[in-house]
């Protein structure tokens, strides 16, 4: 089965035949599970031990993009791959070579394909082969003063080779409100996925200066991280709202439209919430929930400890600032000891400056990341709850059917739909969970290493200061011969 390049794939039948073809692939013990959820652009497939999840047919795209999930490996099919099952399998087995099934190396694909961007892969932790064809950044905060209000906007820059975008580059300005809108839309439209968190919305006026350099910079970094995480997500990054956010000149009028392209794609994204109670969370997801509970606790403790350290260090700083001048004033009444005492005074001053830097850095870079993760976990727990509800709905409906004791063969379509929803949700969530775990590991490795680095730098600065005065202290004064 060959899928024409410009066709939008939606039909169950096509998928079905594809699946059957894949069934004939030569991999031993391949387990094929193909479900297609009506009106949803998502499907899941399983090849061998490779679980392809959240494959998405993209309108006007050159094929399909999917995730190959294997522990932490996530992978994308180059878009020009033909969907012949053997081709798919060969591709999967050779993914380490990053070459197309027909043997051509990845770099020589058609210009519109994602694989041409593989060459431009930045050397970051994401060397698992994920294709990067969408780069975003948030920078250049500026204050806007109008008669109604004062606010900050940020420049959002996009560079991409994806055909979903009309232009390869975009640069426009967005404010926090816009980011908040985007996140809400993503949560609405992709309820089975973990949406990265935004920095805190509400700031206590009078306590924190919303326009101070430090606050704006901390927020900018968090917004940049948010956007990058969305851009790196194989499903979220194709979200229509995300596209609009990155490209639309007049976002406000778009917001007012209310209609999103997504509604054209399907309403199935609106899951039924409430009304159904889940009896027992499956072990896997229960484990996730437990982990999140404990992890939140530990993060809270770490946040408190970090804050306490900053407080103690600040108080230490206060005393150091009193300490240094005493040596100076002593130097003022001494003769020979003047230089040594001044030397000690300046060392203490240097230590003070170094300490000040340390506490500032920790405040600006360390604490916000912790808080971000707490927010992230909150939204993740909500997703888990939604999943529970979807499962509960399915189980309730299934029970109802069973109780009816209909002789009618098979399960009614809507129950099947529910089942599909559950499986889809589970698959999405699992994939995102693994992705999140991976990112979390990297984030915390970076965060804690950064903390260690800053402390090392602080001590190195102090060390340099004290070592530099040893020769001064050891300098024997000139022995003047005095004749009385």
């Amino acid at each position, binding site marked *: 089965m060959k899928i024409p390049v410009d066709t939008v794939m939606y039909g169950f039948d096509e998928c079905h035949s594809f699946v059957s073809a894949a069934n004939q692939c030569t991999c031993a013990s391949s387990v094929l599970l193909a479900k297609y959820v009506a009106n949803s652009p998502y499907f899941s497939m399983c090849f061998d031990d490779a679980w392809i999840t959240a494959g998405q047919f993209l309108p006007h795209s050159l094929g399909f993009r999917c995730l190959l999930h294997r522990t932490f490996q996530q992978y994308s099919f180059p878009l020009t791959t033909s969907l012949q099952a053997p081709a798919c399998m060969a591709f999967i087995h050779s993914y380490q070579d990053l070459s197309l099934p027909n043997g051509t190396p990845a770099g020589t694909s058609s210009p519109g394909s994602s694989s041409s961007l593989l060459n431009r892969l930045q050397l970051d932790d994401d060397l698992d082969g994920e294709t990067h064809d969408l780069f975003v950044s948030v920078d250049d905060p500026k204050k806007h003063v109008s008669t109604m209000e004062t606010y900050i906007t940020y420049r959002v820059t996009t560079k991409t080779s994806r055909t979903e975008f009309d232009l390869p580059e975009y640069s426009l300005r967005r404010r926090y409100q816009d980011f908040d809108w985007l996140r809400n839309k993503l949560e609405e439209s992709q309820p089975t996925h973990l949406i990265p968190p935004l920095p805190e919305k509400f700031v206590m006026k009078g306590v924190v200066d919303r326009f101070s350099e430090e606050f704006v910079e901390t927020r900018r970094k968090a917004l940049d991280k948010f956007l990058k995480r969305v851009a790196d997500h194989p499903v979220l990054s194709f979200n229509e709202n995300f596209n609009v956010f990155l490209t639309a000149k007049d976002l406000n009028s778009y917001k007012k439209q209310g209609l999103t392209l997504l509604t054209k794609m399907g309403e199935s994204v609106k899951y039924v919430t409430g009304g159904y109670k889940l009896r027992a969370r499956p072990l896997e997801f229960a484990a996730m929930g437990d*982990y999140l509970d404990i992890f939140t606790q530990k993060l809270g403790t770490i946040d408190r400890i970090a804050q306490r350290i900053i407080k103690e260090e600040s108080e*230490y700083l206060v005393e150091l600032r009193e300490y240094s001048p005493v040596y100076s004033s002593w130097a003022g009444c001494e003769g020979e000891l003047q230089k040594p005492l001044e030397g000690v005074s300046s060392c203490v001053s240097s230590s003070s400056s170094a300490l000040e830097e340390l506490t500032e850095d920790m405040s600006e870079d360390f604490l916000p990341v912790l808080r971000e993760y707490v927010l992230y976990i909150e939204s993740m727990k909500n997703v888990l709850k939604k999943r529970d509800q979807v499962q509960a709905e399915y189980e309730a409906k299934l029970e109802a059917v069973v109780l009816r004791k209909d002789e009618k063969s098979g399960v009614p379509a809507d129950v099947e739909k529910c089942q599909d929803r559950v499986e889809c949700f589970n698959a999405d969530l699992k994939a995102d969970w693994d992705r999140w775990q991976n990112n979390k590991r990297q984030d915390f*490795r970076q965060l804690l290493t950064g903390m260690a680095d800053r402390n*090392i730098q602080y001590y190195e600065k102090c060390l340099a200061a004290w070592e530099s*005065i*040893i020769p001064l*202290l050891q300098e024997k004064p000139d022995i003047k011969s005095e004749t009385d």
Partner: protein
Amino acid sequence: MADSGGPEAAQLSSNDPKGELGDVIPEEARSLLRKMEISVAEAEKRTGKNAVNMLETYTVYLIETRRVDSSAENQNFSPDSLWRRYSEFELLRNYLLVTYPFVIVPPLPEKRAEFVWHKLSADNMDPDFVERRRIGLENFLLRVASHPILSNDKIFYDFLTEENGWKEEVMETGFQPKLFILADSRLKALNATFRVKNPDKRFTELKHYSDELQSVTSQLLRVRARVADRLYGVYKVHGNYGRVFSEWSAIEREMGDGLQSAGHHMDAYAASIDDILEEEENYADQLKEYLFYAEALKAVCRKHELLQYELETAAQDLMSKKQQREELASGTVRTFSLKGMTSKLFGQETPEQREAKMRVLEEQIQEGEELLQEKKTECDEYVRNAWSDMERFTVQKDRDLREAMISYAVMQISMCKKGIQVWTNAKECFSKM
């Protein structure tokens, strides 16, 4: 003859834990240390009845001495020893203060713990305090024993060697009443400051310096104690990371090991501050010594002021007596003098009366001249001696404080290096997460 090598110098340095005596012994010092090793070896608690027949607990210190002969064969290996308590040291010092008022007498370690930060005990019975006091007392004895003048004092020698009867001996010197005078002189000196007409500029400067030294060292000690307190807090809080990392590692797969090991390093970091601050107490003790030295310096200045005042008073008295003689001889009577009044009231004196008066005056003037000369000599001698000791003191002070600062810098360097080590280890663990 400076002995930079040889057995005495070696023994000196072994007696000199803080290295305060340096490498060179002053040439003039016929100090006791050349002939004798001195140390305060131990401290013990005793209980006994005090003067009001109440039971009290106090600490005694073991003073060990060993004669050192230039010939190595006659080395006596077992030291002589006796026990003394702090109050006896105080007696000795007060005696020295009175007997050698022009000497900047080395101070004793503090009676009660001051400038403590919260972890340090203010309890006199606390073992750390007792230990630091033992070192301080030894330091005191070594300083006295290396002083060119003080080291030759017999009472001091007996303090080191005669356990029994020393107290009576020192009392017999009659120094105690003089001590009251010394204390009293403080009050007198306050008045004297305003009345000395020709203050010696050098001593005025010295007094000024001693005030400044006292104020600045006490301020330094106070702030340093607060700094130590805060630093302690910073280190200890990091220990909490150890526990939370350990708990967190329990729910992690790959990150677990890295977290756990990093946590251990955080624990080590938190624990390291105890030793660091203990060592810093030595620096504080060195500063304290000079805080107390400032007081001794002030005492020398005060005594000088008093002498100066007495000299000026004697000169003034003499001058007025001479003036009276003039008047008597010339017959001039100042209208408003007492003589003028009495003569008006009671009539002129007879020549015999006048002659008698003249004789008395001449005697008084004679005595006055002698007294003035005495005072002058006393003052000059005092100034000479005090100034000489002042110069010795300045050299010692500059050397000691320089050494103290070097050792403080070394402590800071060591602390920084330890900090770098711990965080580098932790960083390695984090990077393996």
